[in-house]
Each structure stands twice: as structure tokens, then as C-alpha cells.
């Protein structure tokens, strides 16, 4: 019951990301999504009484709920770029596409899922949806910062998928990935800062313009 509730929370927040018009809203949304992911992991850890999963959950809380979103929002303030995301596809059309993505994911899951447990099905569908929506955000939003957020969202989805399918990845892999993601966010953030300095904007579709 609780797992299902948290998973639905993740689903709601994932869809809500497509309605966002501004970069800070997208970042806050990502923070909340990670918080719900943390709650799912914590729930798993409490039910299975595994110390390692507690550590992973704590790491998730530290890196994805606190560090990365605050770093990104600081970056947004620092580069003083226009806050609007620049939508290639308006919110309602994005939502309808996301509905088709989720539909595809659930049909796909019902083909091969070995169990009819609701929680397993839900987690599977939600994680695939999160991955696809992250990809969607990367493709259909103009600002380069949304590419970072999209990548992080995809990573959240993969984390969820791994914990559903295999009961989490090996402990060291988990820790390595957490740091990897953090470093990736920082490096792309600095990269973004440099791009903004050179091009005076971070809009992806204009980055191919020649610069003397």
C-alpha cells in the first residue's frame, strides 16, 4: 500500500515535470521526485531489513535531494539566463505523448512480467515511464540545463528499475553511481557556465551557430 502510494507520487511528479514552464520549477520537481524515490527505497529497506539499502537510501537523500538540486539552482542564479525552458512541444501535447509512453510501458510489462503482483507491475511501469520522460525532456526542451535534469531523471528511473528487478545493484556499484551522477552534474554544470559565457545563451538549437 505504502509502496504503491510512493510510486504513484513519483508518477505524478514525473508528469508534472512536463507541465513546468520555468527552469527552477523543473529543478524543484526533480528534487521532489528524488525525495519520493528515497521514500520508496527506505520502504524497501525497512521491509527487508537490509543495512546496505539504508546506506544507499541515505546516499540518495544526500546526493539527489540535497546536493544536486541546490547546485543546479545556484547555477541558474549565477548564469542569469532567462528562466523559461523554451518548449518545443506545449504542456498538453507533452502530456499526451507521455500518456502514450506509459501505455506502451504498461503493455510491454504485461507481456513478459512473470508475476501479477500489483506493486511489481507498478514499479516497473513507473520506472520505464520515468526513463522515457527523462529522455523526452532532453529532446523537447530548448535550454541545455533541462538536458542535465533530463539525464538525472533518466538516472532516477534506472535506479528504480534496478531496485525492482534485481533488488538493487551491488553495494559498491550503487555508491560509485551516486558519486558518478554527482560529478556528472557538476561537470555539465560548469560546462553550461562556460557555454553561457561564450555564446551568451544556453539554447541547444542555437548552439550550432558558428562563433568567431
Amino acid at each position: 500500500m505504502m509502496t504503491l502510494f510512493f510510486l504513484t507520487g513519483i508518477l505524478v511528479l514525473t508528469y508534472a515535470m512536463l507541465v513546468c514552464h520555468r527552469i527552477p520549477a523543473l529543478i524543484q520537481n526533480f528534487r521532489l521526485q528524488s525525495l519520493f524515490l528515497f521514500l520508496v527505497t527506505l520502504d524497501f529497506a525497512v521491509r527487508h531489513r537490509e543495512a546496505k539499502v539504508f546506506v544507499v537510501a541515505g546516499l540518495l537523500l544526500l546526493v539527489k535531494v540535497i546536493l544536486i538540486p541546490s547546485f543546479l539552482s545556484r547555477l541558474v542564479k549565477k548564469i542569469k539566463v532567462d528562466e523559461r525552458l523554451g518548449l518545443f512541444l506545449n504542456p498538453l501535447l507533452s502530456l499526451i505523448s507521455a500518456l502514450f509512453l506509459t501505455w506502451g510501458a504498461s503493455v510491454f510489462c504485461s507481456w513478459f512480467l512473470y508475476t501479477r503482483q500489483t506493486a511489481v507491475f507498478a514499479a516497473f511501469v513507473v520506472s520505464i515511464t520515468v526513463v522515457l520522460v527523462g529522455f523526452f525532456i532532453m529532446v523537447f526542451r530548448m535550454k541545455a540545463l533541462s538536458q542535465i535534469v533530463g539525464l538525472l531523471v533518466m538516472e532516477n528511473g534506472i535506479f528504480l528499475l534496478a531496485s525492482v528487478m534485481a533488488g538493487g545493484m551491488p553495494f559498491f556499484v550503487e555508491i560509485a553511481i551516486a558519486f558518478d551522477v554527482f560529478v556528472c552534474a557538476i561537470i555539465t554544470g560548469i560546462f553550461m557556465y562556460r557555454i553561457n559565457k561564450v555564446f551568451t545563451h544556453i539554447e541547444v538549437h542555437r548552439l550550432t551557430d558558428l562563433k568567431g
Partner: protein
Amino acid sequence: MQYSWLLFQALVAVFCAPLLSGFIRKVKNALRMRRGAPLGQPYRNIVKYLAKEEIVSETTSWIFRAAPFVVLGSTIAALMFVPVFSFSFSAAGMGDVLTVFFLFALGRFFLALAGLDAGSAFGGMGSSREMFISSFVEPVAIVTVAVVAAHGWSAESGEMSRHIGTSFSRMVAAAALFMVVLAETSRIPVDNQETHLELTMIHEAMLLEYSGRSLAMLEAAASTKQLIWFSLLGGVLWPWPFGGAMTLTDGIAAMALFGLKMIVGALVVGLTEIGLAKMRLFRVVDFLGLAFLFSVLALVILSLGY
């Protein structure tokens, strides 16, 4: 026995409804580090309005006078079809949960007309906005109920509540219904109950011309409607069945559980309201579009059998 229980439920619900409003206000104020009005403030308001003189504009027709009675009457009638804290029956087979939406639409129709009746700019603005929003809200509510009804192939509230257990589609439907509840009880992303700022008013704008007894009736109707929406949401998320013959202990347990549900609901709504900003009117389309998408998603998941 059944009918007396039903009437008792309606009475308790009507009398407790302002308490829910007061509690939500209290939660919001606590989150903002303010003291706020006491818990019983909505009751005091109603008593105050009842004692005051009623002033009716000369230019209004009978609709302005009739609207409060229709609104309050239809809201209380809707209570008969909703599983508030007893589930095993609704008003003797007179209708199902969809009747509730019809009764709400009736009240809304009269309230919108009354808003236009006095001919003030605010009333008309409020009415048009209310109709605009309700045209988005109603499909979501109906699809959501359809999803829940499909669990037992009946939209009758007693039959619906016999098919308990959490399923994924029901959870997703509850998420959609939650957004509908925010819109229908004039909560923050859509409307704001606390302000009479001209640009943001929707529900309050329609009530602007009312005073005295009529205003008291409309306030009571608004809080009762809020209680109905909350209990619908509670019924979808956390259904609790009680058999046909209610014993006294069953009844007390059911009421305690209902109170618990309302407290949880008020906390969640208060937190959501604090966390969100009021949306521009045309952004509300995105918000309610999200709700509609979620209700359709619930239908999709249901079709796969989860």
C-alpha cells in the same frame, strides 16, 4: 433503521463540515508560523451572518433569492449518495455516485446565474471562470468514478465500497481526484479561499453580492461540498467496508476512521497549498489537463487488469 442512520450521517456531516475548513486554515497558518483564527471561526462566521440584516439589490430577480436554497439543498441531497462514514447503502437505490455530480452541477448552475443576476462585473467574472473550470473538472471526476466503479461493475456507492483492496489504477485515479478536489474546493493552484483580491477570485466573486442569511447558507454549502469531495477521495484511496446491519461499535469505529481520514486529508491539502503558488487562469488548463491525463491513465492501467 437504515434511514435514520443515513439522516444521522447527513446531520453529522453538515455540522462537522465547517470544522474541516477551520482545521485546514489552522494547518496552513501553523505551517506559515502564524497563530491564525481559532478552530471554530467558520462556525462563528456563520452565526454572525445569520444575525445580520440581509440586503438584496433592487435589480435582481427571483434567481438571486432562490440560489442559496438550491445550492444548500442540492449539496445536502448529495450527501445521501456519498459514502461518508457508512458504506453499505446509499439513498435506497435512488441513484449512484454520478448523481452527486449532477446535484453539484445543479447547484453550480444556480450559483453562476445568481452571480450574473446582480449585474456586477465581479459576479459575472466569477461565474464565467467557475463554468470554465467546471468544464474541465467534470470529465475528470466522471472518468475517475468510472475507474473505481469498474472494480465492482457498479457506480452505486455501497456496491463500490464492497470491492476493497488497493490496486494501481485506483491509486492513479486517486491522484487525479486529488487535483479535482483542489480545484473544486477552491484551493490554491486554482483559486484562493483566503483572499478577495479581484483578479484571483472565482468562488468568492460569485458570493460577493450576498449578505446575511443567504451568505451563511452559501458558506455552509461550500464547506459541506468540501467535506463531500474529501470523503469521495477518502473512499477511493482508503475504502472501508461495513456490513448491512450497522452495530453501534461499528458505527463508532467508522466515525473515528472517518475523522482520521479527514485529518490526514486536511494535512495533505494544507501542505500542498503552502507548497504551490496560485496559477494564472490559463495555466489552470495545464493543471487540470494533468488531472484528466491521470484519469485516462488510470483507465489504461485498469484495462490491463491492475
